[in-house]
């Protein structure tokens, strides 16, 4: 039996990391659904895709680069550049479709340029793409040091259009489970990349170049394969994918700024490794990268829904899972394939075995700690924020509005457990009260008017802005914002840390926090 299993493993050893990624994803999802009631909603599954189409696209290009034996660090830089540039161009009134095409062309050109440097000028991939990343991000900051909001209609249509899932939704009421257009595009890119990688001459050349520490590239060259052209094309394709990711991200966040995609190249490379692609090149599956990305997103979602662990656990978990997959790969690479490989000693083999089991054990320990610390306490006492949540103080807000205030704003929660109410009057007077302390600030009436018209521009009084609520996580805030403007009045509440509130809401609170007075820390 064990022998049979061994033979099966040996025969399909290349598929093992891929299937391990799939199995881990399923286990994690099922475990999450078992412990966290919030995960049982089927929309949560589709939201894994909806929230991060940019990551799904970015891993496609990176996988091909890694298979060809290279590495591309420029993903985040190109994402930042394309999102900022498109936001800036849209602001001055360019046609959105032209902007998108231009951005794709820009990313592709950057990729091609890096590929040229790497292939013909023999600059190391690491260095060349590092320069690409810096140039991309630097240019993005040169375009604008601050976030540029996108108000374009096409972009918001692209962001809001729901493609309903048949069977899980009601087409009449337009309610139910859905995916966004970006996801469909991302999946199409995936399908195309899988086709290219496995069914075309170009794809086979990519596989033949990578691996064996550059020796395979030499052999491919001697066989007469178009090595140089393929390498340039691979980086070009990745540039295209990164640009597409940048467009998706600007659609998703409805803004562009130099900070977008910071550290994204790391997540992407980790996802590629988790998806079963060897960083040495020559081995791997584009399909696996999908699961690599999904596992990363799933961990993030679980931590968000669980609501109590700080988000930094995501990084630690991704690191540990990467370790496990790498040790698994190195273990598999060492499995006997019919004959004993000549140049590895039995001791090295033992070391790898130990490493693999050690990595597996580490994953288990961390998962157990996670379950114990996170899920356990989450289940027994529900979510306990840092403080007892103080109730919304509607009377105080109502009295502020009655008093003539145009904006009443309440914020509570956070690590320091604050509870602040602010009122802004049309004459520019701002009053704040955090229960123990009262402060006042004077701004000009024009400032207040600008703020109000900004809020109105976000279509505050339409269904565009709606209330969302869930129990805030330990370091999150709960917001209530009442706006009275031109005879209308509306209160909207939201909780940060979640992803459910409308993006415009955060734009507004961001604008607000700029003019609100600050409480001095309690002595």
């Amino acid at each position, binding site marked *: 039996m064990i022998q049979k299993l061994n033979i099966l493993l040996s025969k399909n050893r290349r598929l093992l990391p891929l299937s391990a990624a799939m199995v881990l994803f399923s286990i994690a999802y099922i475990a999450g659904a078992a412990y966290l009631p919030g995960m049982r909603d089927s929309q949560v599954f589709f939201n894994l895709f909806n929230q991060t189409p940019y990551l799904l696209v970015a891993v496609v290009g990176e996988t091909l680069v890694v298979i060809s034996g290279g590495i591309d660090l420029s993903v985040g830089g190109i994402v930042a550049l394309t999102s900022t540039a498109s936001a800036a161009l849209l602001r001055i009134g360019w046609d959105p479709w032209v902007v998108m095409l231009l951005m794709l062309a820009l990313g592709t050109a950057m990729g091609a340029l890096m590929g040229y440097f790497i292939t013909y000028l023999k600059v190391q991939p690491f260095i060349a793409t590092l320069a690409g990343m810096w140039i991309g991000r630097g240019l993005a900051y040169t375009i604008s040091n601050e976030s540029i909001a996108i108000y374009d209609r096409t972009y918001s249509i692209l962001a809001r259009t729901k493609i309903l899932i048949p069977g899980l939704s009601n087409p009449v009421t337009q309610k139910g489970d859905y995916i966004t257009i970006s996801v469909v595009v991302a999946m199409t890119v995936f399908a195309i990349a899988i086709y290219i990688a496995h069914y075309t001459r170009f794809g086979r050349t990519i596989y033949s170049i990578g691996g064996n520490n550059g020796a395979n590239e030499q052999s491919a060259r001697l066989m007469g394969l178009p090595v140089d052209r393929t390498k340039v094309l691979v980086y070009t394709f990745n540039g295209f994918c990164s640009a597409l990711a940048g467009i998706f991200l600007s659609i998703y966040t409805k803004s562009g700024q130099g900070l977008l995609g910071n550290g994204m190249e*790391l997540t992407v490379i980790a996802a590629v490794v988790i998806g079963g692609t060897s960083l040495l090149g020559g081995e791997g599956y584009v399909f696996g990268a999908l699961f690599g990305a999904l596992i990363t997103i799933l961990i993030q979602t679980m931590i968000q829904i669980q609501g109590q662990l700080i988000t930094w656990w995501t990084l630690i978990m991704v690191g540990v899972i*990467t370790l496990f997959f*790498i040790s698994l790969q190195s273990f598999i690479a060492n499995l006997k394939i019919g004959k004993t490989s000549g140049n590895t000693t039995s001791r090295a083999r033992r070391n790898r075995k130990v490493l693999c089991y050690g990595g597996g054990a580490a994953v288990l320990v961390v998962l157990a700690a996670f379950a114990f610390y996170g899920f356990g306490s989450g289940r027994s006492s529900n979510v306990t924020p840092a403080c007892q949540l103080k109730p919304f103080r509607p009377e105080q807000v109502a009295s502020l509005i009655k008093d003539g205030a145009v904006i009443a704003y309440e914020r509570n929660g956070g690590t320091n457990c604050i509870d602040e109410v602010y009122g802004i009057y049309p004459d520019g007077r701002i009053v704040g009260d955090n229960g123990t302390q009262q402060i006042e600030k004077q701004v000009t009436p024009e400032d207040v008017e600008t703020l109000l018209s900004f809020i109105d521009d976000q279509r505050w009084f339409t269904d565009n802005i709606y209330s969302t609520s869930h129990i805030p996580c330990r370091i999150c805030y709960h917001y209530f914002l009442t706006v009275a403007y031109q005879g209308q009045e509306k209160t909207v509440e939201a909780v940060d840390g979640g992803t459910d509130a409308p993006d415009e809401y955060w734009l507004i609170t961001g604008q607000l926090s700029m003019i609100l007075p600050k409480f001095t820390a309690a002595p």
Partner: protein
Amino acid sequence: MTRYKSPFTWRKVAESRLLFPLVALAVILLIDLMIIPNFFRISFQQGHLFGNLIDILRNSTPVIALAIGMTLVIATGGVDLSVGAIMAIVSSVAALLMNPFVLGTQLEAIKNDPTYSYSPFWVVLVLPMIVATICGLWNGLLVAYGKIQPMVATLILMISGRGIAQLITNSQRIQIFYKPFSYIGNGWLLLPFSLYLVAILYAVSWLVTRRTSIGLFIESVGVNARSSLFSGIDEKKIKLFAYAFCGFCAGIAGMIDTSNISTSDATQLGLNLELDAILAVVIGGTLLGSGGRFSLLASIIGALVMQAVTTSMYAIGVSANSLLAVKGVVVILLILLYSQQVQELVRRITGRAIVKETKS
């Protein structure tokens, strides 16, 4: 031991590893000389030296410390991506030792006292360094004994390191008020104190690598790990040493940076600094990927080149964020300087000089 003293020849200059980094540094400083007035002025205030050149030296100390460790790692044929994350961990540990109010064990009142530290000063100095070395050892274990590709092995710590750093400080930024600690990054003894620290680090690593056989072993492991194994060099221990030392250097860089900003900043501290360090080493002429011969001094000059670019851009008035783009272009130009075409050109020019010399 008497050393054979060879006469000065053009060939020696052309083949010196210091040539290209020095040329790069000279070019950048020359541009500064031409377009920025007073760039080279050094003033003497309150017993300290001030000026752009001193700024370059002072601001480059963390990268120099990183580059020293990184040189050894790259010389063994590896790379260490995790140094930035190690710096963040060190920063968190050091800050927690001095001011553990996030654990709820400290009174808020004495938090601002510049003479107060929760742990004794020597613990604050030693423990973070031990943590950093352990981080380096972990990388070394994965690379040397786990046979994992260095870029991947160190990627793990690079990703999870910042998470760990956040975890240590409970995802808060801890301010540091303790005076003696701030001396590490902000103290002056005519020159900035951190400069002396890095000089000592360089001296020690030079002695270890050039006055013992460890340096030779490192080079031989980088050139060909198998054949050095056959000639009796324990390749694994050498690699382990290189990574552990790199972790130690990252620890020093982390202490300098933490003391400089007087805060533990797990998200930003040392961010992308691993890239600067790798680039410094590459500018210093050590081959990324294949390893082999290395020069610590050349790497340090490489780090100075990087910082000289930054400082002169600030002097011109480029904003901190746009600076990245300039840095990217400079990197490409510098690396092209190392391309075969340019190298051959230099060889041809100096070749003529050599012919002349032999004729005369």
